[in-house]
């Protein structure tokens, strides 16, 4: 098979090759021939031109001879001399007679000028002959030779003498060839007078050979025929023969090469007919041209030439060019042939391949057809056993359908025998559900138009079994004739459809449920890649991308949305069964979304990797709030850290949580050491042991003992030193935990100063009081009359002295009181007291003083209230207020005391009828030494500290003090004290 497959192109190629060789050979031959003809033509043209040039030269010589001869023959002087000579000769005188000699001399003289001129033009002969025999009378070229008759040897002369007509022609002699013209000389001027002689002029047949050769750019030689010489009765010359056996003699040459050639017998004779030929010599090529020199005029019949010219020219360059041209031709045609061969070869290879492929194809087609047939047979066998219906449906180009094959299943599906369907394909569509028919038709058409595979589900009304669901699958195959064959099968899928519908229903229910969730439900493989198999639609709310983008990572992966910084946080470890994390996502708008994710891994025995099911929800709002809280906490912690006072925060058990820089400085511990330790380690015994119990008790009772109050405590430094602190404790609730913030101030220094001051005060008070005691005691005794009644004038002064000593004592008391109050050293004993009783007591105590100032004290009806107060101190306050009111009351005035219920307070008022208080003093009323008019201090006998002390005392009793006044309308000072809690405290 292979051999035959290859042999065809082989011999085709050989034949084609041969034809190409022949074609290109003949074309090349033609070209060569044309080239050769051109070459020959060129050479011939060359020869022709040379011969024309030579003929022209020869013609010139001859014409010159004619002209000169005719001119001289017509010269009267020449004619007269000649006629004299003729007469003399006729008279019998001999030529060598003296007389005749003279006559000859005269003739010669007459001709001499012409001869000289002729000689300059290379004239060879000028001679005069006499009588019919042609006796030479005068030879100008050879003056001593005369008297010989030459007419017999010289036909030309003979003819001229006989015919009386001028003759011209070529004559040869041993020196060469010459053009001669012989003109007859007559006896008189009459045209038919007897001929007395003739005048002959001869020039070289050709001008000077060297010059001519130069003109023609060629070598030039003259050859003459030996026979012609002999005929002219000239002795055979001894010149160089043209060739060893030739009659031709070389008589003149312009270049000596010719002699060498002659010796080598390379030159052919002119009669050989090879007028023009190429000569190879010395490695060069010469064009050798033999041009015969004819003596006849053109009108005369041709005779063999007596002389000829040889012209040779070096045409090596031309020939070289010619050869080159020939070589180029050869190359050109060879190339053309080779290209043609190559093309042919290519063609042959392509052809061969094509044939091989074609054959292979045909073979495969045959095998395929056989296989298909076998398969078909088998398929039919199988198809008849299949539960569904297997079919082959052909759609003809005109749109008609016909079943090629229908398996037995047709009966089960359509209730129709296969044979009936094959008869009429349209029966298959009769029982199809009308709603599905258009779809089915469309699907068929689609397959027919664009062959491929298709699936369609449709319903069939089975005559016995009712409505069935069927699924048809078909693959279309387009045949060459334009028809399409559908191979397919139809199976019943009623059960499947039922199941699918149920599944869809449950899935849609699931989706609806999941859709209502605030977050995203997902499922992915537990490989840590988060390649989502399922994502609920909530993902679109969360990220802005639809769920379909993520499933199978089609458009983007869920992992790609995770904030790059949070990727470690969001990494699922496939080893762990539960994942929970908070991290950020970047949504479609590029915004950050905080999410929380909880996932659980589901593993099964045959699936160790398992599935990861999880829930992701948006906690951005929470996260932002937390962030804000963190910032606030940071702010607070900065604040706490940098406050001058030490801040220690403990939890309900006393464990330190915060220990700021100031605390570190004060206590000598670093925060690191203290956080997590019990606060009690900062306390000396016994506080240390008591503290835990105190906290526990507080947790149970919840009564704030030490809260929101400044307390002085002793604390323990790291170095064991104890020191005094001022502590203020606040309770807060942080993250649902009860905590205490302790604000600690190291008051060691303050205490030291206070101690010094206190000592000073005590010393001062002692040192002042001791002499004062003596003074006022002594004066008191005198004024009291213990030493007898002093004289009245003295007594007045002693009273003044006594009163002032008492005032000084009060001033010292007030100062010490105020100092104690301000320093917080005054301890008040707060108990419940009856308001009425207190006011009555105040009236009693101050009645005497009021009476001294002629002022009445009146108690208005008092509400029945219980107040919380230190009774001594309350009396001190009331005494202050009442004494002030009395002091500023006019004589006979009234000071009224009132007690009433106001909100949670009991309000005590002391109203006077004095001048009132100018508004500009209102602000300073409770300051030390601030009586409205400083002169009042002395005038009214006050210390200037009363209101300041009263204010301190009232406030120490958790009360308030104030006044209302309009200048000119008296003043009302009041103080409000807290009411006692009901019943139990009542006495």
């Amino acid at each position: 098979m292979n051999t035959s497959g290859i042999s065809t192109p082989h011999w085709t190629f050989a034949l084609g090759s041969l034809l190409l060789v022949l074609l290109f050979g003949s074309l090349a031959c033609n070209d060569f021939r044309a080239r050769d003809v051109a070459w020959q033509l060129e050479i011939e043209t060359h020869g022709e031109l040379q011969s024309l040039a030579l003929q022209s030269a020869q013609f010139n010589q001859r014409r010159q001879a004619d002209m000169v001869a005719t001119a001289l023959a017509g010269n009267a002087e020449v004619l007269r001399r000649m006629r004299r000579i003729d007469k003399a000769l006729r008279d019998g005188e001999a030529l060598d007679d003296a007389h005749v000699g003279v006559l000859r001399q005269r003739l010669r003289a007459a001709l001499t000028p012409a001869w000289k001129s002729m000689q300059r033009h290379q004239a060879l002969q000028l001679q005069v002959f006499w009588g019919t025999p042609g006796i030479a009378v005068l030879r100008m070229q050879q003056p001593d030779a005369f008297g010989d008759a030459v007419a017999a040897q010289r036909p030309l002369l003979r003819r001229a003498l006989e015919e009386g007509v001028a003759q011209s022609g070529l004559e040869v002699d041993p020196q060469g060839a010459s053009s001669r013209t012989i003109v007859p000389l007559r006896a008189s001027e009459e045209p038919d007078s007897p001929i007395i002689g003739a005048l002959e002029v001869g020039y070289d047949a050709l001008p000077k050979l060297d010059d001519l050769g130069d003109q023609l750019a060629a070598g030039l030689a003259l050859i003459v025929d030996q026979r012609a010489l002999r005929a002219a009765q000239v002795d055979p010359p001894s010149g160089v023969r043209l060739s060893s056996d030739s009659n031709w003699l070389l008589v003149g040459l312009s270049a000596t090469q010719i002699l060498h050639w002659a010796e080598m017998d390379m030159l052919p004779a002119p009669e050989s007919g090879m007028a023009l030929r190429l000569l190879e010599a010395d490695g060069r090529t010469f064009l050798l041209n033999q041009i015969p020199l004819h003596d006849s005029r053109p009108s005369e019949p041709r005779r063999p030439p007596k002389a000829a010219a040889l012209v040779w020219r070096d045409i090596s360059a031309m020939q070289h060019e010619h050869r080159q041209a020939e070589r180029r031709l050869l190359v050109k045609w060879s190339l053309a042939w080779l290209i043609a061969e190559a093309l042919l070869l290519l063609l042959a290879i392509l052809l061969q391949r094509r044939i091989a492929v074609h054959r292979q194809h045909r073979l495969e087609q045959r095998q395929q057809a056989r296989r298909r047939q076998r398969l078909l047979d088998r398929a039919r066998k199988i198809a008849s056993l299949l539960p569904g219906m297997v079919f082959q449906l052909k759609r003809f180009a005109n749109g008609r359908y016909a079943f090629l094959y229908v398996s037995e299943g047709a009966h089960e599906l359509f209730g129709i025998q296969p044979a009936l369907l094959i008869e009429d394909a349209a029966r298959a569509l009769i029982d199809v559900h009308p709603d599905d028919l258009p779809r089915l038709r469309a699907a068929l058409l689609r397959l027919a138009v664009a062959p491929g595979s298709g699936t369609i589900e449709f319903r069939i009304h089975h005559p016995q079994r009712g409505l069935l669901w069927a699924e048809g699958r078909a693959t279309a195959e387009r045949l060459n004739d334009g028809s399409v064959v559908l191979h397919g099968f139809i199976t019943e899928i009623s059960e499947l459809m039922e199941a699918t519908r149920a599944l869809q229903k449950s899935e849609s229910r699931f989706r609806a449920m999941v859709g209502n969730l605030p977050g995203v439900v997902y499922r992915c493989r537990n490989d840590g890649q988060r390649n989502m198999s399922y994502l609920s639609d909530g993902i679109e709310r969360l990220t802005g991308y639809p769920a379909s983008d993520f499933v199978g990572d089609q458009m983007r992966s869920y992992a790609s949305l995770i904030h790059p910084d949070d990727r470690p946080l969001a990494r699922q470890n496939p080893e762990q069964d539960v994942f929970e994390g908070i991290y950020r996502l970047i949504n479609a708008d590029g915004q950050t979304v905080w999410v929380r994710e909880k996932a659980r891994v589901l593993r099964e025995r045959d699936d160790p990797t398992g599935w990861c099911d999880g829930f992701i929800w948006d906690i951005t709002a929470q996260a932002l709030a937390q962030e804000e809280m963190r910032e606030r906490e940071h702010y607070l912690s900065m604040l706490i850290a940098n406050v001058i006072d030490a801040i220690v925060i403990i939890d309900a058990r006393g464990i330190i949580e915060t220990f700021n820089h100031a605390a570190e400085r004060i206590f000598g511990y670093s925060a690191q050491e203290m956080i997590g330790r019990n606060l009690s380690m900062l306390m000396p015994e016994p506080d240390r042991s008591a503290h835990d119990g105190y906290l526990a008790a507080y947790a149970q009772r919840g009564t704030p003992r030490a809260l929101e109050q400044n307390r002085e405590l002793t604390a323990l430094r790291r170095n064991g030193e104890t020191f005094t602190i001022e502590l203020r404790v606040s309770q807060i609730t942080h993250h649902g935990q009860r905590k205490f913030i302790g604000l600690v101030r190291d008051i060691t220094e303050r205490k030291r100063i206070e101690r010094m001051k206190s000592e000073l005060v005590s010393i001062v008070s002692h040192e002042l009081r001791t002499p004062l005691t003596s003074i006022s005691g002594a004066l008191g005794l005198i004024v009291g009359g213990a030493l007898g009644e002093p004289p009245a004038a003295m007594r007045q002064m002693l009273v003044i002295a006594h009163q002032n000593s008492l005032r000084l004592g009060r001033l010292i008391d007030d100062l010490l009181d105020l100092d104690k109050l301000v320093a917080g050293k005054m301890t008040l004993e707060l108990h419940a007291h009856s308001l009425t009783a207190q006011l009555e007591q105040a009236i009693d105590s101050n009645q005497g003083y009021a009476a001294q100032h002629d002022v009445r004290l009146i108690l208005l009806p008092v509400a029945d209230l219980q107040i919380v107060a230190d009774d001594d101190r309350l009396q001190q306050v009331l005494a202050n207020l009442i004494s002030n009111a009395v002091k500023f009351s006019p004589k006979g005035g009234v000071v009224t005391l009132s007690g009433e219920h106001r909100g949670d307070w009991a309000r005590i008022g002391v109203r006077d009828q004095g001048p009132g208080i100018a508004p500009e003093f209102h602000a300073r009323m409770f300051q030390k030494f601030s009586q409205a008019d400083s002169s009042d201090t002395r005038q009214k006998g006050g210390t200037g500290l009363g209101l300041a002390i009263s204010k301190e005392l009232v406030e120490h009793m958790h009360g308030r003090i104030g006044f209302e006044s309009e200048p000119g309308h008296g003043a009302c000072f009041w103080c409000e004290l807290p009411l006692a809690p009901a019943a139990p405290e009542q006495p």
Partner: protein
Amino acid sequence: MAELRRILHIEDDPSIQAVTKLALEAIGGYEVLSCSSGAQALEEVERFAPDFILLDVMMPGMDGPETLARLRERIDLQRIPVTFMTAKVQPGEIEHLRKLGARDVIVKPFDPMRLPEQIRSIWAAGR
């Protein structure tokens, strides 16, 4: 029941000594022995056999509380009440002095005209 007649007054300041002595003798009609120091008082107390002792707190050398402690060794303080006189009334001081065993505290400056009555009421309170 004994009657208050003899008062031992221990006071370093002679002026107060004089004023007190005058007030108690002239107005109260008591017999008063004034001692200028605790040491002197200790020497005199048994011999003088006072019914009431008035004791200054701040004294050079032996101060009031120390004198009280020494007196306690020699006499029955229940029978012969000791009352301090002090000008230094610091918080809690009165209470402190009471704890030391004093019957009461009289604050300086005192009213000399009312002093005998004051002492009598203190003395009476102890009976």
